[in-house]
């Protein structure tokens, strides 16, 4: 019965072909593309010294600033109260100026104070134990702030304006 054999063979072939097509379509399908990752958030850069200085360049003279500078640079000799009794004062041959002395400070105008801080004691016919701070502070507004602090300490006004 050749015809029956053909019939059976055909059935087998059809099922094989169907399987092949199925596997073909399965192989061709690809996984979907994943969604793109969100962009990373760039953290803010920390402030650096350069930036702090750049801010200082535009900072106006103020008593607050004078306080900060005075306590850092001046108190070792002139003392926290400004009376010339800093921890380093006993080691000096000449007693540091008493900034709370209204008479002494009142005799000095702001220009004189500016020059003393800027150029040091030696340049204004005073003791060289007071060093020049101009180049280190590198900002006239810092010196002006320090003068405000000095005027605050002595509760006195300049002999003359500047």
């Amino acid at each position, binding site marked *: 019965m*050749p*015809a029956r054999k*053909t*019939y059976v*063979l*055909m059935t087998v*072939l*059809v099922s*094989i*072909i169907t399987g*092949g*097509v199925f*596997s*073909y379509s399965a*192989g*061709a399908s*690809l*996984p*979907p*593309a*994943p969604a*793109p990752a969100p962009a990373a958030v760039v953290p803010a850069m920390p402030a650096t*010294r350069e930036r702090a*200085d750049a801010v200082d360049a535009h900072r106006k003279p103020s008593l607050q600033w004078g306080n900060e500078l005075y306590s*850092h*640079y001046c108190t*070792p*000799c002139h003392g926290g109260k400004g009376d010339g009794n800093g*921890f*380093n004062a006993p*080691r*000096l*041959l*000449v007693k540091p100026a008493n900034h709370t002395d209204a008479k002494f400070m009142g005799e000095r105008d702001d220009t004189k104070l500016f020059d003393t801080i800027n150029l*040091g004691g*030696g340049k204004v*016919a*005073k*003791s*060289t*134990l007071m*060093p*020049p*701070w101009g*180049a*280190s502070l*590198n900002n006239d507004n810092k010196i002006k702030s320090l003068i405000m602090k000095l005027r605050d300490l002595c509760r006195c006004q300049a002999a003359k304006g500047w």
Partner: protein
Amino acid sequence: MKLPKKYGVALFVCAVVLLAATGYMFLVESELDRPWKAQQRRFKAIDRQLTVAERKEVSDFPESEEKRKKLAVLDKRLQSMDSVAPAIRQLWLTDFGVADRCMTCHQGVELPRFKDAEQPHTTHPGKHIDPKRHPVDTYGCVVCHAGQGVALEAQDAHGKAGNWVEPFLPGRRAESSCNGCHPMRSNVPKSAVMEDAPIYSKGRALYLQSNCLGCHVLDGYARAKGIGPNLTNLATKVNAGWFRFWVKQPKSYLAKTAMPDFELAEGDIKAMAAYLFSLSKPLSPGVKNRTAVSGQNLAKQGRAKLQNLGCLGCHGINGKDEGFGPDLSRVGEKNSPEWLSNWIKDPKKYWPETAMPNLRVPAEDIQLLVAYLSTLKGTKPVASASVDREKELVDKGRLLVRDKGCTGCHKIDTFPLGFNAPPHDNIGVKRVDELVFGKANIPRTLPHWLTLKIKEPRAFNTEKIPTLMPKFGFSNEEAEALLTFLLGQRRFAVPDKYKKVLHDPASALVKGELLIERNNCRGCHKIGGKGGDIGPDLKNEGERVNPEWLAAFLQKPRKIRPVGIEPTQMPTFGFSKEEAEAIAAYFAVQAGASYPYYREDRREMSQEERDKAWKDYWQVFSCQACHSWNGQGGIIGPDQSDLGNRLRRDWIAKWLKNPQASMPDVRMPNFELYPEELERLTTLLTGFSDIPPSVWEQMRRRWDDELLARQGRQTGGK
């Protein structure tokens, strides 16, 4: 049923046609549509899309030579795309003994334009396969990512092929393979990071930090010293109540402690206490704890003292346990005043390997410190308890202390240091059939097993095979880092020419960093921009100091900056000569300064110049106002007695020229020296360590008199 003959013929013809069609499907089509061919088609489609888009963008540019060139390149790419036939791309890496067909599907790994494409076409992330580092032609993929390089189907190449000897290392886990060519052993600092392998580096740091080497052996790694305190005299340090509280759940007190949780039963803790406390010898008498003497609040004074001593460089007192040393917020409950005073006086006497330095605290200050520390207690203080001394209990405790592996981290004089846990050599390729999964229901692969073991060490525990490893409480992230590290512990068949040590344990930088890390120098100092600000910033140290001086200083530190400016003093770490020299070399090499340094102190100076220099020193710039010599003079800047030996000549000149350039806040003024002044002052200062005191005294008198006379003239003339 009998069909007519013509139907038979028709059926036969149909059969032949179908057979031919099937043959075609089998032989031609199915081969055409192997999965990798589909991937290559998809790759081509993406590339075309990208290239067309780029071409459109470029064609909008204004006309230029560059534009024409770019367009030509793009056009050529588009044309050549059509002519590329699908093919298996195979690398045969003879040096590594592997065949690698990964690029058959991962065609875009080297092409930056595929960075947003989906897998497997996307660009390789990071700089790992940069042609200057690991060109794909030389290294392929399997050398780092393992897996079956010759497989052409995803599941075979990097599926969960459990029994494949070298399991595929997906993504960041491939960092473990860095270990093959760039080993970092225990002689490299914990903080050392391989730039392209942050996870592996973190795993390595955790591995060392958690002292896995206390119990496990790993080839090339040495057991660390001084992880946990010496327990021989434990009874003098803590009481039994505290011992129980601590051992039961160490992390409930110190969140960052390396001490793991042994999940001990109450009875076992009692027995261990009985044994450990039976070993202790009595303590030498310390100071009596007194909180007040004649109305003075000693604890309050002690608190101020503690801040000035720099204790906070290593210890926190806020219960957060963020410091290098243990948090002190409950130290008053934990330690007796006697023990504390002995400890502060000389920590290395109780525990020779401790990282705690000797702070050289005077006896009266120790009393103040202890008065303060004794007030530090938790809200619910631990009740003290007594210890049973029964022989039976002591013997039971002895066995427990031995079997729990306490000596992996703690030295106990009656036991040898160490404990035998399975070695970690080649653990990265441990075969799955060697692993005991117990009742754990996880996929049977090495990474799964290791991850669970790291996180829940007792998960595989069965009655027949009990697990001893304690629980460290690693987070998922930490567990992954440790897993990556452990997977990297395997034999690598790598020819020597590929090996490149990135952190050379013999180099000055690595040797120094190891010591800096171990002694927590950054607790107080900034080194390389990182660290605390209790001590001076050491950014210029190498350029500044004579390394010979630094080595001597480290072995026997003394106060350099006066107390008014710098209240803390450098403690004594007990560095050996070799260690001190290694640190000195570190700073010199880090700064690119000469090492060893040959002191150039005697530059010729005529008598006339010398006189001028002395005048500059005393009268013009009055250095003595702030600096002392042999204790005479100002106390704002450092003493200058050994200046010439301490500082390098170039540094003295640089510093004098503009101190603020090196240290913006320094109180040393910039005197705006002329070059000749700078030269002669520098020469004078470099000779300072060699001036006889008599000469100095003579100079001091002479110039002091002059100063007073001048001052007299000024005030008199006014």
